Every structure is written in structure tokens, then in C-alpha cells.
């Protein structure tokens, strides 16, 4: 049939009343009998309305659209809906561009952390309240587990320390620890340290529940050189957990791996992160023990893991830690 050979143009012409009588009738017959074609017509109506609103119709088409297409109340309602949708999309786009403008370096002052947190919570963002409610719920559910895990890890560290002492006492000198065991010991210590405070260091103010502190990190060395300053993470004594929130432009990978570096050396790393889209921002949250940090400059390197397992650089984040 004729419309099968030139369907998109015919449908548009049909909607704008530009077809010959014969073609028009052919399409009408198909509209009555073909379910798929009926849906094509409905979708083409939406496309036409969108093109009208975004100024993509040429003068003649605009005129036909207004004089022919828009004659029915239902289509006028479609236009009103599409106009509302376009306004909504523009608002969302503006909000997103404001967010990207906000990705400016935070001055290296004592108020940097408070400023970051306040700015995060002060955003007039849609969906923030449900996101916070979900976060509170997650915290409520995971806190007991976390406490349990901490106790378990503390026990493991004690055992490891005892084991280490035993090995050292058996060796003639400390350097005689079997080399095959050294990486294992370091890894286990590092894993344990990521969960709790440094073993052996007396902790005078162990809180009854972990008190996380959050730092939102915006991407890259670019920011660092632009301002000469770093985002500051102040960790008070009573803080036991740190949430590093890595702000991303887009979630381009199914999963991520993050490494924490100090003075160019890797302190710890973790894989299996997925980006959370909170409607105000796309972020990865990396929670770790506050004890991991000492005062100094840090760097987080983020790598996206492709579906075939390759790691690709996705971003670098710099910040400075200050502890009492």
C-alpha cells in the first residue's frame, strides 16, 4: 500500500491534513483496522506537538498545526500537557546546570566542611526528602549490624596482634618474619583498620553508636589548581565514621572501584560501588573508619569498571584532613 512505502511523511501529512483524498482515506481505513498503526498515529501526534513547541516546524507546518491539528479539544489538551512537560524539563535542566555550577572548589577554611554539608542540605531539590528518609531508614537498619561487625573486627585485630607478637618473639629479629606472611598480615590489618580505630591506640571516647561525618567531593585536579585550595575534612575525636561522597557528572559504568591515596601511596581501596542517582546529584558514597585518616592531604581515584571487566579512570578527588 502507498502508506507502507512512505509512512512517516504520510502520517505527518495525515495529521496536518495535507494528504490527497485518496491517501487520506487509505490511512483512515488502516487506522480503523490496524492496532499498530493506531499507536503509530498517537505517538506521531506527541512528536508533532513537541516539534511545534520546540520551534522545529517550518512556517507552513506551524500554520497547518494551529489551524487543522489543534481544532479538537483532545489535541489542545495534549498541547497543554506537552507545554507543561517542556516547562518541567527546562526547570530540571536549569537545576542540573546550577548543580554543575556549584561544583566549584570550596575554600580551604575551617568552615569548608560545614559549608559543603549545609549546601548539600540547602538545595531546593525535588526528591531530597524521600532520599533523606531512605538514608535514615538504612542507617537505622545497618547501625546494629555495624556495631556487631566492629566488635567482631576488634576481636580479630586482637587475635592478629597476638599472632604477630608470637611470630616476632619466635624470630631472631623482627626482619625475620617469614616474607610470605607479611602481605597477609598487612592486608588483614588494613581490612580491620578500615572498620575500627587503630589497634593499640587507646580510645578514650568510644561512642555508643558510630557518628558519621560526610564530605561531598567534587571532581578533579582541575578544581584544585583553579583555587589552590582543597576541600577540608575535619574529623573530631567523637567521629568514628567518614562518608566520602564522590559527586559524578554521570553514571557511565555499571560498577566502580575507588582507591584512597596519601602522598601518592595507596592507603586502601574498595570495589563494587554503584552510583546512586538521587535526582539532585549522582554520587558514590564510600564509608570508612575515621581512624584510617591522619591529618594530611588525600586523594581518591575512581575507576569505572566496564561490563567486560576493564577499569577506566573516571575521576580524581582531592581533599585535606584535619584532626585534633
Amino acid at each position, binding site marked *: 500500500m502507498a502508506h507502507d512505502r512512505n509512512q512517516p511523511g504520510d502520517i505527518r501529512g*495525515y*495529521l496536518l*491534513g495535507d494528504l490527497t483524498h485518496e491517501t*487520506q*482515506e487509505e490511512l*483512515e*481505513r488502516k*487506522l*480503523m*483496522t490496524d492496532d499498530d498503526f*493506531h*499507536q503509530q*498515529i*498517537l*505517538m506521531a501526534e*506527541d512528536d508533532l506537538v*513537541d516539534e511545534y513547541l*520546540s*520551534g*522545529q516546524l517550518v512556517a507552513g507546518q506551524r500554520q497547518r498545526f*494551529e*489551524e*487543522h*491539528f*489543534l*481544532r*479538537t*479539544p*483532545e*489535541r*489542545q*489538551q*495534549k*498541547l*497543554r*500537557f506537552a*507545554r*507543561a*512537560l*517542556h*516547562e*518541567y*524539563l527546562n526547570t*530540571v*535542566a536549569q537545576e542540573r546546570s546550577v548543580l554543575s555550577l556549584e561544583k566549584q572548589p570550596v575554600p580551604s577554611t575551617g568552615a569548608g566542611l560545614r559549608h559543603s554539608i549545609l549546601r548539600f542540605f540547602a538545595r531546593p531539590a*525535588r*526528591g531530597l526528602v524521600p532520599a533523606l528518609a531512605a538514608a535514615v531508614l538504612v542507617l537505622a537498619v545497618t547501625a546494629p549490624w555495624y556495631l556487631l561487625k566492629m566488635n567482631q573486627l576488634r576481636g580479630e585485630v586482637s587475635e592478629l596482634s597476638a599472632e604477630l607478637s608470637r611470630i616476632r618473639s619466635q624470630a631472631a629479629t623482627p626482619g625475620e618474619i617469614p616474607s610470605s606472611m607479611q602481605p597477609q598480615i598487612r592486608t588483614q590489618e588494613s581490612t580491620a583498620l578500615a572498620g575500627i580505630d587503630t589497634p593499640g591506640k587507646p580510645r578514650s571516647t568510644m561512642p555508643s553508636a558510630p557518628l558519621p561525618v560526610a564530605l561531598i567531593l567534587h571532581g578533579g585536579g582541575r578544581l584544585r589548581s583553579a583555587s589552590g585550595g582543597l576541600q577540608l575534612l575535619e574529623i573530631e575525636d567523637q567521629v568514628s565514621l567518614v562518608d566520602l561522597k564522590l559527586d559524578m557528572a554521570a553514571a557511565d559504568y555499571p560498577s566502580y572501584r575507588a582507591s584512597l591515596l596519601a602522598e601518592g601511596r595507596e592507603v586502601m581501596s574498595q570495589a563494587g560501588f554503584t552510583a546512586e*542517582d538521587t*535526582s539532585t546529584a549522582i554520587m558514590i558514597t564510600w564509608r570508612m573508619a575515621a581512624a584510617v585518616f591522619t591529618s594530611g592531604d588525600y586523594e581518591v581515584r575512581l575507576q569505572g569498571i566496564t561490563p567486560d571487566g576493564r577499569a577506566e579512570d573516571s575521576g580524581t578527588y582531592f581533599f585535606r584532613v584535619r584532626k585534633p
Partner: protein
Amino acid sequence: MAPRRDPRDGMDHEIPIRQGYPNLAPLRTEWRITQSMFDRFLAWLNPDRDEAGRRYETIRCRLVRLFASKGCELCEDLADEAINRVVVKIQPIIEAYEGDPMPYFFAVARLVWLEYVRRRSRFPAPPPPCAGDTTGERECLEECMARIPGSQRDLILEYHGAGRGHRKQARLRLARTLGIEMNALRIRAYRIRLQLHDCILACLMRR
């Protein structure tokens, strides 16, 4: 707008003919449609009454679209007029006509349209359409956007969100990300949009 008939109404009474727009007055016949006529009509569409009701809605929807595409502002009235003409002649139709009812409705719709065009010139043209203030739609849209699942909201924002020059590329990327063909993406976006549209209409009705 004239009241719509419920095709699943089981009461045996005469169904009143609705009062249409003045433009339609010379076209409208004083049909006397009884419940038994309407029951036979539904049975002709489908022996199952619920299925027949859905069929009735489909036929009406397509007739409305057919008249709308002719640039007719009274498309709903003409669609009802075409259906009424079939209902009142249902007995001879059942006896003489075989096959899918859709082509029959199409033929009746053509006659209704020709009669309407012949008589339309005697009446003033309707005022030009005006989109007007969309504040209500906008407020309802925000409410409806908050109700749909996040994945659907993201899809509709991505699908419609890219600027004019980048729209095609953005949609191709989105289709690739979702692992579907462009046409499947278009249908998916259309269905979400339809869902939003219905939600907005319901929201506006509540206000």
C-alpha cells in the same frame, strides 16, 4: 460534553440521545435506542460483555481520531453519531453483514463526515484554539512525576531532556544503555507519557 453511555449497563431502558453542539443539530437524528438494541449491538461486537465494552471503547477512540484528523472540532460528537447509526440498524446489520465490524464503522463514518461537511458551511467556524495558562497542568505534572517509579522518571527526562540539536544522539545513547531498539524506546517513552497524561487529567479533575 455529552454524557457517555456505559456499554455494560444492564438496565432495560431507552437510552437518551445526547444533546450535541449546535453545529451538529442538522445532522443529528432523533434516534430511539433501546437497551435491547444496545445489547444486541454489544453482542455483535463480542459475545463476552466485558470484551464487547472494551471493543466499543476502541471503536469510539478510533472514530474520534479519524474525525480529528479531518480537522473536525466536533470529533467526539461525530464518533457518537456514527455509533448511534449502527446501533439503531443493528438487527438488519446482524442479518446481512459478515466479518469484522471495523470496516462497517469506517463506511458509516465516511457518510457521517460527508453529511457534516455539506452542512457545516451554514454555521460559524469555531474560535481558534488557545493553549492558555498551564499552571494547573504543571502543578499536576510535578505531583505525577513524583508518583511514577524512578526508572520511568529518568527515562522520560532523558528521552525528552536533550536539547534540540542533540536529541537524536541522546536517544540513541539511551537506547544503547537500555539495550533496546530505538522504536522500542519510543514506545516505552510514549507509554510513560500517556500514563503521565492520564494522571494529570485525573489530578485536574480532583481540583
